[in-house]
């Protein structure tokens, strides 16, 4: 496994004069899976944009730094909240798009293997228009997992999946991304309780870090400690939708 890197993000952000978060201070530990929860519109996606260097529209006053002091450039892979599949490419070609865009040799074997593991063996040559929302989301996941980047940003990657598939995909992603520094935005407390090696909650009154269960990840869906953590998170999320 390649060495992993920790990330520190500190500062405040506003979009078009509208303040978003203030004095944020968040540390993503190297090689750990961090989950970020919070009400809709609070700025979770914006944090991912900042980390992916896609935040031209955001006024960010602060600093993003990595443990090794090197820049973020070309070290991040990012799965956006929408699948962003290209309608003119098959599932396989969508999965290979990163390598093609960089003009690297394409690894068909790996892409096919990934798609198969994601349960898409019958859709390897299908076009996005012929796939369901959940299938499309899994192609987008495959495309993200293809990238060999140290830092992985996931924006609600499992939101369109049924509960069973979701649990499978969580385990599979955790396996593929082991040792990478992951920031996973989710609305699902159960998901965070199951996967998080760090759990953050972003709300109107700022960012807080939640105590995680002692059980190592990926935690069993019915592990009592996980369920307690899930309940705790849900309680904190209740009534925060202002």
């Amino acid at each position: 496994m390649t060495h992993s890197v920790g990330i520190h993000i500190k500062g405040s952000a506003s979009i078009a004069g509208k303040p978003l978060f203030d004095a944020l201070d968040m540390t993503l530990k190297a090689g750990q899976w961090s989950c970020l929860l919070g009400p809709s519109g609070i700025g979770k996606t914006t944090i991912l944009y900042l980390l992916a260097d896609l935040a031209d529209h955001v006024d960010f006053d602060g600093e993003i730094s990595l443990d090794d002091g090197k820049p973020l450039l070309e070290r991040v892979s990012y799965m956006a909240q929408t699948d962003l599949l290209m309608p003119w490419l098959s599932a396989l070609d969508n999965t290979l798009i990163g390598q093609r865009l960089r003009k690297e040799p394409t690894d068909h074997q790996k892409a096919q293997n990934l798609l198969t593991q994601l349960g898409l063996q019958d859709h390897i040559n299908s076009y996005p228009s012929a796939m369901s929302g959940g299938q499309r989301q899994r192609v987008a996941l495959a495309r993200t997992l293809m990238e060999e980047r140290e830092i992985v940003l996931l924006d609600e990657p499992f939101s369109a999946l049924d509960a069973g598939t979701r649990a499978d995909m969580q385990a599979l992603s955790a396996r593929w991304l082991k040792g990478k520094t992951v920031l996973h935005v989710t609305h699902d407390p159960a998901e965070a309780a199951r996967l998080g090696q760090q759990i953050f909650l972003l709300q109107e009154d700022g960012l807080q870090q939640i105590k995680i269960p002692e059980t190592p990840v990926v935690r069993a869906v019915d592990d009592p400690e996980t369920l307690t953590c899930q309940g705790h998170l849900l309680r904190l999320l209740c009534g925060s939708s202002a």
Partner: protein
Amino acid sequence: MMFLIRSLAATSFIILAWQALVTLADLPHFILPSPLRVATTLWEMKSLIASHAMITTIEILLGLLIGTILGVLTAIQLAQSKLTRYIIKPVLVLTQALPVFALAPLFTLWLGYGMESKILVAVLIIYFPVASAFFDGLMQTPKGWLDLAKVMGATPFQRLWRVQIPAALPSFASGLRLAAVYAPIGAVIGEWVGASKGLGYLMLLANGRAKIDLMFAALLVLAVLTLILHYLVGKFCDWLVNKYQP
């Protein structure tokens, strides 16, 4: 198939109405020849008409090809750099502000009575719709895809080739459809201004000699050529859009 039947029905109706008009109003054939007369002329003069039609077809196709290639290259160039946009965009708009009709005599003066001047008129007429439609398409690439390409570390050429161009093909197709409408107009205008060959030339010639039936026959052939062109380009555009935006 339905389309073919409807077209045939409409055509038959027009021919009948035309014949009725000539018969009922008792129009002299040098004002409006009857369809039968036009058909007879078309048959009798088929090799003459065909040779002129061939010239016009070549002008149209070459004009379409060159105009489209130039339009595509311009659009890509413009989409690549702000600087070129700054410099070339006004030139592009200027070529549109000048009516090409007005330039046609100049082209004939410079390039002579041959095909070149007609092709140039067609090229100029086609160039702008293709360039501007394709350019708009390239500039409207959804931001999410550009973001994805950026995060993935795409080379500029690969981003253009694998994201922007495919995403812009539907816009390109609508520009090309327009170009197919304009191309025959360009070629015929070029011929009217000064030529020794082509359907436009033949029409003027026939008109000048009061051979209205020949003029109608040439017009008819031009119409058929134009329809075939629309049909083929339309099919190609449908294919393009379906392939890239299914």
